[in-house]
């Protein structure tokens, strides 16, 4: 469920970066207040443990497949939500950098999807209430199962919303939801079983490890409303954006054009102002969703503006045969140049 950069628009990726960075900063501040200094090595080693535990699989009864620990829930159980969130974020960062598992732009999305929901929703609102009042084996199993399933379902739904809001994938909303949620129901059950098995063992072998945590977990209750509000806002914004993206072919662009009125300005006015607006349009970091509809507008804008030497062609290749051929030819030539550059830079056989 790690999202890749290739499916994320900078607007969505940037927003989720800000949200996740804010959550990390909040957790860091919270930890600084309640920090037992033995938590520093514990968090680091538990992050490494998540990687290591994924080498060992168990067989899933009645199926041919096998599963392993995911991480979010067990970390929350052992460390409390704040420390767990930081550990999950660090695990995802290492995965993005060294395994190409999830991208850098998508890192904010991944931290939110895989960290926020288990640590700040599933653990405090499902696992802890269910586990309260005794640690029966069945009770613990049910708590872990429900918490893991809910955490992963929310995360998977959030993946769908973020992907739809980015507008790069053509998957219809309902198909995507029907694809993601059942898969992650299965993954959630596996994760719940694995978490319950490990927690059950630790409860038998060293029960004090599980009791040591609540000191830092108690702090979350005071901020429940803030966090719920944040989650709601994210869901509402995500939902609204994805609604725009799905009902309007170029919904985001359309909405932004409505707000700023840039599109009209670029086409009509001349002189410096027109050039500035045009330049702004060209360097705009928001994707142009309405490729086909906007094409004519772009061509008109390019031809109507006072012809500078740089105004040789429209910004992106038009659908006409001539430009697409030159696009393909030019693209292949550029690819060739890149390969040449790589060949020139290719490391000679050296010993490292």
């Amino acid at each position, binding site marked *: 469920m790690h999202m890749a*950069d290739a*499916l994320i628009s900078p607007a969505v990726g940037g927003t989720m970066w800000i949200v996740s960075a804010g959550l990390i900063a909040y957790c860091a501040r919270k930890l600084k207040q309640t920090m037992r200094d*033995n938590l520093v090595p514990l968090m680091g080693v538990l992050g490494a*443990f998540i*990687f290591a535990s994924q080498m060992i699989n*168990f067989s899933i009864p009645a199926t041919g497949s096998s599963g392993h620990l995911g991480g979010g829930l067990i970390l929350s159980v052992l460390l409390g939500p704040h420390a767990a969130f930081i550990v999950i974020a660090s695990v995802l960062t290492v995965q993005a950098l060294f395994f190409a598992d999830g991208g850098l732009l998508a890192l904010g999305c991944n931290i939110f999807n895989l960290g926020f929901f288990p640590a700040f929703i599933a653990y405090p609102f499902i696992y802890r209430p269910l586990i309260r009042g005794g640690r029966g084996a069945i009770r613990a199993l049910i708590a872990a199962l429900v918490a893991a399933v809910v955490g992963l379902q929310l995360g998977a739904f959030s993946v769908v919303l973020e992907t739809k809001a980015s507008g*790069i994938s053509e998957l219809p909303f309902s198909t995507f939801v029907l694809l993601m949620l059942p898969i992650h129901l299965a993954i959630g059950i596996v994760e719940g079983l694995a978490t319950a098995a490990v927690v059950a063992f630790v409860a038998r072998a060293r029960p004090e490890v599980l009791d040591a945590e609540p000191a830092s977990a108690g702090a979350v209750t005071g901020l429940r409303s803030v966090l719920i509000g944040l989650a709601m806002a994210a869901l509402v914004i995500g939902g609204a954006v994805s609604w725009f993206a799905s009902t309007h072919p170029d919904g985001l662009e359309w909405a932004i054009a409505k707000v700023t009125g840039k599109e009209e300005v670029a086409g009509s006015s001349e002189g410096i102002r027109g050039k500035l607006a045009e330049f702004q349009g060209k360097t705009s970091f928001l994707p142009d969703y309405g490729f086909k509809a906007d094409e004519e507008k772009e061509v008109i804008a390019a031809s109507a503006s006072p012809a500078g030497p740089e105004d040789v062609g429209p910004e992106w290749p038009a659908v006409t045969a001539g430009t697409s051929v030159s696009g393909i030819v030019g693209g292949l030539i550029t690819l060739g140049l890149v390969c040449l550059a*790589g060949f020139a830079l290719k490391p000679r056989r050296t010993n490292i």
Partner: protein
Amino acid sequence: MPIMHLANWIEVGRMDDYSRQDTPLHRLDARVKAVTTLACIVAVMSFPRYEVSALMPFLFYPMALTGMGRIPFGFILKKIIVASPFALAIAIFNPVFDREAAFMIGPVAVSGGWLSFTSIMLRFVLTVWAALALAACTGMFRLCAGLERLGMPRIFAGQLLFLYRYLFVVVDEGARMKRALELRSGAIVPVSLRVYGSLVGHLLLRSMGRSERIHRAMVARGFDGAIKIVREPKFRPADWAFLLGWSAFFVAARAWNIPALIGNLVTGAAP
């Protein structure tokens, strides 16, 4: 989440070796490389969904990092391929749902879906390659120190460094456990849930025990709760040149479709 095989860890170890080389690229400030790489990825992802040819110039950036950083191309290529299934699984639906013809190559009509599919996979290669090349030519320690100076919370920077430091130690422990299991169970590797619980639970308790010992060792050496990170020296002219040069290139490649311009020149097509 892919299952972590031991081979993956040997690969991460190799990546660590590459990041310890000493080339002009490795000597650049980590902040500069991180910001430039992120700028490259954002620029790539800001193109409209049907764009293919204008993305090509951006390949120069990861190619330059890989070449100048003396990182073998085969190593990076393998990692990109291993990481590709998720993007592929989502992108493959574009040709299914978007069948409108976008343009013709001779008699063959290419649908918008295949065009955007190509675009997604090209972007996937670009973004993943850039991120991997950044990690391989910077290394975790310099990267964390740099990001901490860019405003990353100190606790998070410390966490990343700690995680990275003990990754190999704890993974070795897990690998030994797995080997022992395989030797005793006749290669029937997926164990029952109950056995799994005690295996991984043991691994967990051992890890926690290790962290206790680490903590005592740290306290003995004067640890006061805050991790100290060595700060690198100031920006040098080479850092500015790298940052500004590549940024200018990204802006130019984003604003003008350079391959289309070359194509126009070569084919003589009207703009």
